[in-house]
């Protein structure tokens, strides 16, 4: 039994008939072809699937597409463009905040949302703010620096 929903993703309104059990992350990736949002676990731990829903960082593997009905979702594809990168994206590039890049979209979304809450976070606040995001490559240090760079840049 499919259910009609309408979700705004990166500013575009999508009307879709979805199975009630379809996860938001699968709607984004498999239906809307926005594959920048990644899946790294099925237990809401890794944060690779983090997107911003109505201003909140949300793990898109933990909510159903139908729960996003009427919501506005921003994914990594909607954050910045190559010519006009979001400061957090720029920070990741400048400070080598990524290696394999798999955790990166989720990290960047979590980092961007963190800066929305705290405009000049300390290193400690950044580390705690990223508690929901795992990276196996970078050891996090350059990610902390990337977000600090973005914070100073945004001023």
């Amino acid at each position, binding site marked *: 039994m499919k259910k009609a929903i309408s979700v705004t993703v990166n500013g575009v309104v999508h009307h879709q008939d979805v199975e009630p059990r379809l996860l938001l992350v699968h709607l984004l990736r498999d239906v809307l072809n926005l594959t920048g949002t990644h899946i*790294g676990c099925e237990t809401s731990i890794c944060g690779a699937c983090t997107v911003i829903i109505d201003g909140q960082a949300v793990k898109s593997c933990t909510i159903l597409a139908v729960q996003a009905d009427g919501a506005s979702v921003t994914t990594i594809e909607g954050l910045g463009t190559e010519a006009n990168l979001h400061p957090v994206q720029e920070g990741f590039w400048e400070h080598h905040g990524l290696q394999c890049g*798999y955790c990166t979209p989720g990290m960047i979304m979590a980092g961007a949302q963190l800066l929305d809450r705290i405009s000049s976070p300390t290193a400690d606040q950044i580390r705690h703010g990223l508690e929901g995001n795992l990276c196996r490559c970078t050891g996090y240090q350059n990610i902390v620096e990337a977000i600090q760079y973005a914070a100073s840049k945004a001023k």
Partner: protein
Amino acid sequence: MAEKYVGQRVKRTEDPRLIQGLGHYVDDIKLADMLHVAFLRSMYAHARITSIDTSEALHAPGVVAVYTGQDVSSKIGQVPCGAALPDLKVPDHRVLATDKVYFVGHPIAAVVATDRYAARDAIDLIIVDYEELPAVIDVEGAASNSTVIHEHFGDNIAYKLTAGEGDIEAALASADHVVKQRLVHQRLAPIAMEPRGVLARYLPGEKELTLWSSTQIPHLMRTQVAIMLGIPENKLRVIAPEVGGGFGSKLNVYAEEALLGWIAMQLARPVKWIETRRENIQATIHGRGQVGYIEIGCKNDGTITGLRYNVFADMGAYHQLLTPAIPTLTGLMLSGCYKIPAIQMNTTAVFTNKMATDAYRGAGRPEATHVIERAMDMVAAKLKMDPVEVRRRNFPTPEEFPFKTATGLFYDSGNYVGALDKALEMADYSKLRKDQAAARKDGKIIGVGVSTYVEICAIGPSAATPAGGWESATVRVEPTGKVTVLTGASPHGQGQETSFAQIAADALGVDLNDIAVVHGDTAIVQYGIGTFGSRATAVGGTALVLALEELTKKATRFAAHLLEAEPESLQFEDGKFSTDGKSVSIQEVALAAHLARNIPADMDPGLSATRFFEPKNFTFPFGTHIVVSEIDRDTGDVKLTKYVAVDDCGKVINPMLVEGQIHGGIVQSIGQALYEELVYDDQGQLVTGTLMDYAVPKAAMIPWLELDRTETPSPVNPLGVKGVGEAGTIGATPAIVNSIVDALSPFGITHLDMPLRPELLWKIVNNAG
């Protein structure tokens, strides 16, 4: 060649796509008409399969096919093991279980359906009757366990091996003290953030199979899968697209890779399988898994006389690609950075009802380093000497290189004292010791740990590797002057698209952005070995240097012809060949070479060169890590309050990338030292089967890492590089454990096995047994 890029902190060229979420990992690739595969996996560690009923699953909505071991075992060859050792027992390893299952997660059946949800639903409809058997779990007891996993072998011993040189009995007998210790290297899960995944497409007319796989070794995989499927290797194309981390877990050939290819051929439709994290922890290779006994002899002045390590190595139920070879790497590196006249390692490798172990970042060397670095600390404690002093007394001097060890290696170059002194200075070691003494008086539990490590990289000479240790590179200057580099290495986060472009840009005097580094596609790139063993830059980068030299020679001859001059009279600088006020750019040369209207009669058109590099030796990076830890009396929590690392990986192409490798490696070490452990219970159930209970370190668990380098070039390759991919995971673990054992020495602690979880430490400091 002017060095404009090499040695600089050049921002990565791979990043723009990745920070925008525009890279393509396997699961991001979609083909028309694509089907999805899900696996039914064993929930028992050891059981006989008495029956499998797939009829209900076959009729479930969306299901296209269901395959069991019966269907495929005679059609698809064995999952390969590339390691060769005397008297090695190699079990029959089919892509799906047939009569028995051997570990939790063992694949039993594959369901193919129109979408992922349907495939997973249908898995639950397959009915398997099992007759449960006792599980062999304990590594030390496996050899004598009356339950035999592979019955026809008669016991659970995969092989026994004695290695090392020198008279170990005499060496230990001549010691003033012999320190003994049992030591456990717990099983770990590599946890690349991107799980494995395969997409397979077969074109029946062309008879061409393409596999997109999240792999570190596309070429080796192509060879092996072609053999498994019995298809011509030149009709199989393997593509490693964007790969989301490997750490050795994708340096393998897996059952699923061949099976997906086979299914695509049966159905003539594309099929995709994306591993879930639960499957990843159950059935992607594990790392470590050794229980060993150390005996180390020393003189009263701290000189080491000999080292014996008797070890039980956990193979798991089957061999994967390199499973049996991993403990042999431990044996090679047991000498650490010390002069030890006699070393012996006695390995008993055993089968257990668990997933296979294999090359997880460091692959056998972290075990060796942990053994020798813990042993050096135990010697220091026994002699009441400073651990730094004991190490110093046993170092070879820089003049003693190449340095021969009693494990049969020749270390290429090193300055161990140099790295140690730099780290001591950065950490202000003598002050740390004073602060520690003062803090102890205040009731604080503080420890300082040191490890001075050496590791083996740039794997390696072909004679010492199972499938070739060389690497290849092709450089082409296209008619428009853009440069294409094809490398047989297969980076998956290391950043060689950038570092190789740096090397090529400097050599050819072209802009970095005019270079494309292509890798990971067997239809495009000449045969290569892949990225593992910290080899890509030292071996693959060297092949690139050789190819660039050859290409420059060719270009010089074309240029001389165009300028009507002798090749020897030409200067090549900043991408221009010049003589006598005349000049021609490399781009112009490339166009002329392709148009071929005016080229020397004895030269072929086009401008490209392919070279292979066969290293004569491994390289041996080294360094010193110093850690300060503090244990919370009330919670047993450890805080690492200082972390200093001085690493020497020879010459450096891009310091930023090197630091990134070290950061990541150290943090994986912190994971091993403090948090991570794959726990199987007595029945062989994997208790830590998700990221909820397998504790990968998070940002807030990690201290600030203070890094520096010393630079001792390697004589093994013209770049002078050594490799750095695994250094952090090798050097860091013992430094952390040493610091915590040091912190707890007032409590009578001389050794602790990892992971050093709060519960363990709390019990010690609160005397709760």
